[in-house]
């Protein structure tokens, strides 16, 4: 299967809570591709995807708790590395 590009993804519900999260993902991951499906947004990225609390907070203008992503996350792929500042999805840790 080595011919296949290793993609990670995160799928989120479509709602007002996830809008800033998706924007932050686009800002911090220039290679990410956003697919808007019925009721769901799927963000693919080659190899690695990082969600930064600081970027979401910048967009929101208020504090944001990274663990609250649990409310709207539908699915993901890749290894998860989570701290209070960022959540990273990646292959080959």
């Amino acid at each position, binding site marked *: 299967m080595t011919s296949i590009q*290793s993609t990670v993804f995160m*799928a989120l519900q479509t709602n007002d809570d996830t809008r800033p999260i998706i924007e932050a993902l686009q800002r911090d991951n220039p290679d990410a591709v956003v697919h808007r499906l019925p009721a769901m947004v799927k963000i693919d990225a080659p190899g690695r995807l990082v969600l930064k609390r600081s970027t979401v907070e910048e967009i929101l203008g208020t504090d944001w708790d990274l663990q609250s992503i649990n409310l709207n996350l539908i699915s993901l792929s890749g290894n998860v590395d989570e701290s209070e500042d960022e959540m990273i999805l990646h292959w080959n840790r």
Partner: protein
Amino acid sequence: MNTQDTRRPSGKKLSLKEKYAQMTRGLGWDTTYEPMDKVFDQLGLEGIKIHDWDKWEDPFRLTMDAYWKYQAEKERKLYAVLDAFQQNNGHLNISDARYVNTLKLFFTGITPAEYNAHRLFSMLGRQFPGPGAAIACQMQAVDELRHVQTQIHCISQYNKYFNGLHDHTVMNDRLWYLSVPKSFFEDAISSGPFEQIIAISFALEYLLTNLVFMPFMSGAAYNGDMATVTFGFSSQSDEARHMTLGLECIKFVLEQDPGNAAIIQRYLDKWFWRGYKVLGLVSMMLDYMLPKKVMSWKEAWDIYFVQNGGSLFNDLSRYGLRMPKYWEQSVAEAEHLSHQTWNAFYNFSGAAAFHVWLPSDEDMAWLAEKYPNTFDQHYRPRIEHYRKLQAEGKRYYNPSLPMLCQTCQTPLIFTEMDDPTRTSHRQLEHDGDTYHFCSDGCRDIFAGQPDKYVSAWLPAHQILQGNCVEPGAEAAGDPGADALRYFHVVAGQDNLDYEGSPDEANWLRWKGLDKMPPAAAA
């Protein structure tokens, strides 16, 4: 233990990781009054070697207080939607009443499976000696119960207005095609703890669950089913945690001992194929049962198995793992799977708890576009033939009982991939008996544990042996009628074609379509 030395109120701030470790990881201890292998007495069943449970990496670091907080918020949102759905007769907003048949299949096939998962993860939560692993499993145990219950509460409204949803637990125990998911979960739950977690957390949740939920829930959204979208996506938010558990678990086991890889590969080969055979039901939901289609089974398999699974196995190759056996065959079969499955249900719909129908011209155009290599060649002619028979009042039913695969329990309805006219049928002798299989994959699984699979409860055999009679009821003498009663399927109400069903009549009446000329109502 001088208290004055250790008292440092308002000390350093702990990171999420440190806080979780302090609050969780030290809770367990090595027992000395009772031997550890008696306290955790299932760990030696499989030959997996774990040297240090402290090496377990916690994927999500949710303490119970955070768990209660976030889960309560999810439930508040979900039940607000369900309340609104019920108060506003939301079931009238779906695209078409045919859509409800996908819910019937889901509710009788998947919801009871989630119940088994609830109990299976309770088992793992008790059997793993490391608190990190045990706690992740315990949270999943209570999550799975959540999924069962939110599904019940969502379907509660549909059950009041549509048939076939009324007895999902009994149906799951008895109805012939539901022995496919039932035997899958019972196969997992009856295994040792490591196989249990590889089967469910890794093979099912990580590798295959996206195929059930992502297209199906998008399909629900597309077909106006607000309640199902809401419970589906709400369940999936837990699923993200569960999938991560599956991946962490497999890496942990592989890193613990080089001897584990061979056992894990065997589990992966088995459970990939087991899971794939269950998903045949999903393929026909996507391609034939959603009135408004989202993506084809083949597209879903490409995205969620070939690409996503491929990335995963790239990552795991450094442990010496390879793609599961026969994965190439699953890719080749993606061109055929849904068509052959739907055809079987069309033939046997007299004994099913949901309705079937023939695809419309528009549906067939979509299928031809999605399956350019197979649909027009092999499957359109058959559907057109059925149409003709139906127009002549000679609707075709298969009156016989299908032969079932001894392993996955699907009927032998699939063909060889290089020859779509020849049924795929494998056999194996064991202890003087001949056993039948749908595929090389299922035959191999049987050969690995023949003593396990010979005990399988095969519905077709049981009906023929007269074992499918409602307890306490007198046998009618007609095995077919007895079996339906035993399945708790109400003849003429839950089974047969959508056209002419009480579901259809109710729907047309509710929507005010029953007074229109038939052409406009269709």
